[in-house]
């Protein structure tokens, strides 16, 4: 089954895992040490992330290391970044408008 990448990043634990492996390659045990959930639960999250190609597995000796698939993450980031940019720019205009409305209300009260 093809997992959905947006579903994958909607989960807070998976987002935390992404943040961890973005810094350095980590083994499942090392990742699990950062969470209160069971090692099994962490493995399940890793499997979902791998199915979405958000993380890559690398065999080093007897250990498997997980690393972030940066290009894949960038695609989503760029899309969300556009939302953030357009909305922040609108909201800054809204800040200005609200400040004006506040000022007007003050004046009206004085009269």
């Amino acid at each position: 089954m093809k997992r959905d990448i947006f579903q994958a990043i909607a989960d807070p634990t998976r987002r935390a895992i992404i943040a961890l492996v973005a810094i350095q390659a980590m083994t499942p045990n090392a990742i699990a040490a950062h969470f209160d959930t069971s090692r099994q639960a962490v493995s399940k999250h890793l499997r979902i992330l791998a199915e979405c190609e958000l993380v890559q597995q690398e065999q080093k000796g007897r250990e498997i290391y997980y690393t972030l698939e940066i290009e894949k993450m960038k695609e989503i980031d760029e899309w969300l970044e556009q939302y953030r940019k357009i909305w922040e720019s609108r909201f800054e205009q809204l800040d200005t408008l609200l400040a004006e409305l506040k000022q007007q209300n003050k004046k009206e009260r004085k009269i």
Partner: protein
Amino acid sequence: MKPAEVGTPSDREVLIKRSFDASVNLVWQAYTDPALMRRWLTAMPGWSMPVCDMTTDVGGQYRWRWRDDANGVEFGFTGEMLEVEPHSKIVHTQIYDPGTMGGSMGDGASIITVTFNETDGITNVATLIKFASKADRDAAVSTGMTDGMEMSYKQLDEELSVMNTRTPVV
């Protein structure tokens, strides 16, 4: 105020959160009075908002249209008001109107839910965009208005860099 936060609570949703240093009364006004709305909802440098028809009656229609003043290209959104709770919540459908810009954001209507919440004079606004289907979300990711926005921002970047290199006229 802290910049807008953007997240994906599920595979079909985008959530945008922002706080404003104003009472919910004023924020509500800015979100429901078309004359005020068109002053801030534009935000793309060089674009105007020639059409901003809207109503706060449930079942009423709205129509927003933006124009790139440099070349006359237009696009917009239309939809219907589904729920209106004064000072607290607006729910409406949203359909992309490709105008002369083209592109697609899928066939279904997105559902937009805007909630307002005031604490100690600060109003928190959450905007939830729910796409009709994953296919529609993908259409929005790959085409549609985001392309246009990216273009406008690139234009702005270029204009700014030109301004920076220009020798000041005394």
